[in-house]
């Protein structure tokens, strides 16, 4: 069973803090993603990574950075948290192997509140 685990389910941080959201997957997937989910806006891609140390900007990368030092772990970093980054953050992973449908597996989400 594929498992994507996010380090926190709920998180409250202060404005200006540096915030780390961690995500670990156990299926040896090449691709990993960070999405932000807001009501009425669906899921918007922040960053994705298709290999260790590789990263690509998604649709809304401003204010975020990522790190992928190991294949199984993908971290989202808010360098200086702001109230407009209060949101639900979803991590996902998928394989690059052709024929397997590129189904993405998701973590349970981290609801981040910046006060």
């Amino acid at each position, binding site marked *: 069973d594929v498992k994507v685990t996010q380090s926190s389910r709920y998180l409250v941080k202060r404005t200006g803090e540096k915030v780390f959201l961690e995500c670990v997957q156990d299926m040896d997937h*090449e*691709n990993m*993603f960070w*999405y932000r989910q807001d009501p*009425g*806006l*669906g*899921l*918007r*891609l922040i960053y*994705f990574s*298709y290999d260790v140390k590789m990263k690509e900007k*998604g649709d809304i990368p401003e204010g975020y950075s990522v790190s992928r030092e190991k294949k199984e772990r993908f971290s989202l970093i808010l360098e200086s948290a702001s109230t407009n980054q209060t949101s*639900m953050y*979803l991590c*996902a992973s*998928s394989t*690059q192997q*052709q024929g397997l*449908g*590129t*189904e*993405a597996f*998701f973590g*349970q*989400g981290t609801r981040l509140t910046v006060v």
Partner: protein
Amino acid sequence: AQTVTQSQPEMSVQEAETVTLSCTYDTSESDYYLFWYKQPPSRQMILVIRQEAYKQQNATENRFSVNFQKAAKSFSLKISDSQLGDAAMYFCAYSFMGGSEKLVFGKGTKLTVNP
């Protein structure tokens, strides 16, 4: 850029009835995947059904089926014999059939199932 549009922010259905959720997408690619994901109140995003664009036959998974119209770029989800457990947010998603795919999501449809 690829876009996915879900025109129904909310839908409701009576238990045991059938409901259809709409999705349209825009792409210039010929090979791609389309997905419907379900996100119940528990927040865990799970795959409901997947369609490969090169397959003409509509995908079916038990009570869930799709109507895939490639020329019209339409991908609707039909839920038959609706159950209370079907209540959730439903997201339509697109992925290019390449090696390092990313999922592009619609804004979601909230489905309510009335007893």
